[in-house]
């Protein structure tokens, strides 16, 4: 492409993420060293409860993303594959199992308890059961009924989840001789809610032209919300980020200098290929909306902490009806004035990828928004065919350019 390769601007906040993550893992190890329990949780686990129990939550999925982004995931993937785990399995699960099978001497401290909820991913339970078998660590599996309308939950559904949360509290109290602290729960719920509020506000500002917060920012800056919910550090991070984004809006400073195409990105990002975001930006295309970035943002009500947390367990995107997903997509197209959609069909994440075609076809037909679907893996760099993907991106950008010329 002959477009001038302008320098894309990453937020100052984004540059601090690496350090924040390292601090977080250091805290987890420190917690463990002081004889207190560490939980390995799947990322849609209500960690607010764990804070109220003085259990430190770490998320192997996030660990997998980090290993991939920092280019040392192969060590763990190969370890799992050496033991016979197939390359067709989710790469987060392979990374985690490889890590568990190779001594767990990296950043993530070994677990004292394994906690998962059946609320989003198909692999969670079997993956956590395999960990239990390999490590002999106690396991808690929570159930979440499928949700058709999150605003109109049946009481029995909510009661069912609340009851399980109470079970979890009881099990942890008994197992580790800890006392559940309700005040701490309220505090964690408030902090969680605040972090979500701030992040959602920042995401909303992406409707501005030029867009002040790009794909590189959103892909990184989601992490405090994924793994550090209920902490002061997360709230501080988002306060700072929001201030910065507001400043950019005031100064009309965008991610790129000459914003031509505003894109939606669907899927988990390819953690080993952040340069692909820059590849889009060099062609004048900026990501302004990703359903993934909203996936952990959920407003909580501190006056009903347990119930509110239970609702959050239920309302996770993948646990909901496809219509709700489509509705979100459609709304975003107007709100963010989107020119095209890029859908990453992720070999690891079938739950996310399976409905993509239906979603894309609906947005294509309702709004005449062109879309591109490409295939790779979120964390396993061996599944990434760079030349072929860039080839598709080039063609897609040419389609967008042609359409924008026609409109003018």
């Amino acid at each position: 492409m002959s477009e001038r390769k302008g320098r894309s601007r990453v937020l100052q906040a984004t540059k601090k993420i690496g350090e924040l993550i390292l601090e977080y893992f250091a805290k987890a190890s420190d917690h463990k060293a002081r004889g207190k329990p560490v939980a390995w949780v799947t990322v849609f686990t209500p960690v607010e409860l764990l804070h109220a129990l003085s259990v430190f939550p770490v998320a192997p999925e996030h660990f997998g993303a980090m290993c991939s982004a920092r280019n040392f995931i192969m060590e763990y993937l190969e370890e799992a594959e050496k033991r016979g785990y197939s390359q067709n399995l989710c790469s987060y699960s392979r990374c985690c199992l490889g890590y568990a099978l190779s001594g767990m001497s990296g950043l993530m401290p070994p677990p004292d308890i394994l906690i998962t909820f059946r609320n989003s991913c198909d692999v969670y339970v079997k993956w956590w059961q395999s960990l239990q078998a390999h490590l002999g660590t106690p396991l808690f599996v929570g159930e979440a009924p499928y949700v058709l309308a999150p605003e109109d939950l049946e009481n029995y559904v909510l009661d069912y989840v609340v009851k399980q949360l109470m079970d979890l509290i009881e099990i942890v109290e008994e197992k580790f001789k800890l006392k559940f602290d309700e005040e701490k729960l309220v505090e964690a719920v408030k902090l969680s809610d605040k972090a979500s509020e701030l992040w959602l506000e920042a995401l909303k500002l992406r409707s501005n032209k030029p867009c002040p917060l790009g794909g590189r920012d959103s892909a990184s800056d989601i992490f405090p919300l994924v793994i550090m919910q209920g902490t002061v550090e997360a709230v501080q991070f988002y306060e700072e980020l929001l201030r910065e984004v507001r400043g950019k809006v005031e100064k009309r400073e965008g991610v790129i200098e000459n914003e031509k195409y505003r894109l939606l990105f669907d899927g988990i990002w390819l953690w080993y290929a952040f340069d692909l975001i820059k590849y889009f930006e060099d062609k004048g295309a900026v990501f302004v909306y990703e359903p993934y970035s909203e996936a952990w943002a959920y407003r909580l009500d501190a006056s009903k902490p347990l119930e509110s947390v239970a609702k959050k367990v239920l309302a996770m995107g993948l646990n909901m009806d496809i219509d709700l997903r489509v509705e979100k997509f459609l709304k975003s197209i107007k709100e963010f004035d989107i020119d095209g959609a890029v859908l990453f069909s992720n070999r690891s994440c079938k739950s996310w990828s399976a409905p993509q075609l239906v979603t894309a076809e609906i947005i294509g037909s309702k709004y005449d928004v062109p879309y591109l679907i490409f295939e790779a893996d979120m964390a396993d760099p061996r599944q990434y065919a760079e030349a072929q993907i860039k080839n598709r991106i080039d063609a897609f950008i040419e389609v967008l350019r042609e359409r924008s010329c026609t409109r003018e």
Partner: protein
Amino acid sequence: MYAGVDAGASATKVVIIDENENIISHAIVPSGINFKTSSNEALKRALEKPGLSRKDVLYVVSTGYGRELVDSHKVFSEITCISHGVHKLFPSVRTIIDVGGQDSKAIRVDEKGRVIDFVMNDKCAAGTGRFLEVMASILGKPIDELGVLHFKSLDPVKISSTCTVFAESEVISHVSKGCKVEDVIAGLHNAIAERIFSMSNRIGFEREIALTGGVAKNPGFVEALSKKIGFSLILPREPQIMCAFGAALLARKHFMERV
């Protein structure tokens, strides 16, 4: 004069056109491992034929996998180039299927030749020219003969695997069981046609439908695909250079816009 250079995964194609968008000459050379060398060689050959020199070329557009490595003024994707090339020759075409050395694509264009939608094969070699090359070498047949042998087949075998490596063992097992080579070849053509049919089906088969790319030179495959789709296919006289032709048209267009 204007040049379009299509540095493809297996062959590099160059088309030279004049001010009136007529094809003056073309050349096809194997890409090898150095796109710069192969594109220079192809350009040299294409210019030699009508007695032209590099200085006669006002503008060059490159495309194909090696597009960034070729000396050119501007770069376009194959999707855009193929659409331009085909539309120029066959304005009634709405669907283009291109089967090249390393990938295959289906493109939907509107009445002005603009790309509306496209799909490409996933990253494996099944459904591409490379697949046929591998199979031809297993069968010990030159690639050009596959098309002829296809028509001798009375009972094509069924190749069920879409993976090149697995299909290879299937082919070996068919041959060792005593199946006729022509039946295996027809089976392979059917398998690729099947694969390309399912891929293209997402954007639909609005008529007219054109077939381009190096594999379109194989009449056995053309028959298998058109049977599968249920319509006859429009075939350019030299289907392999449509993309380079489109690139040359874009070269002319961009040169004109510049001056």
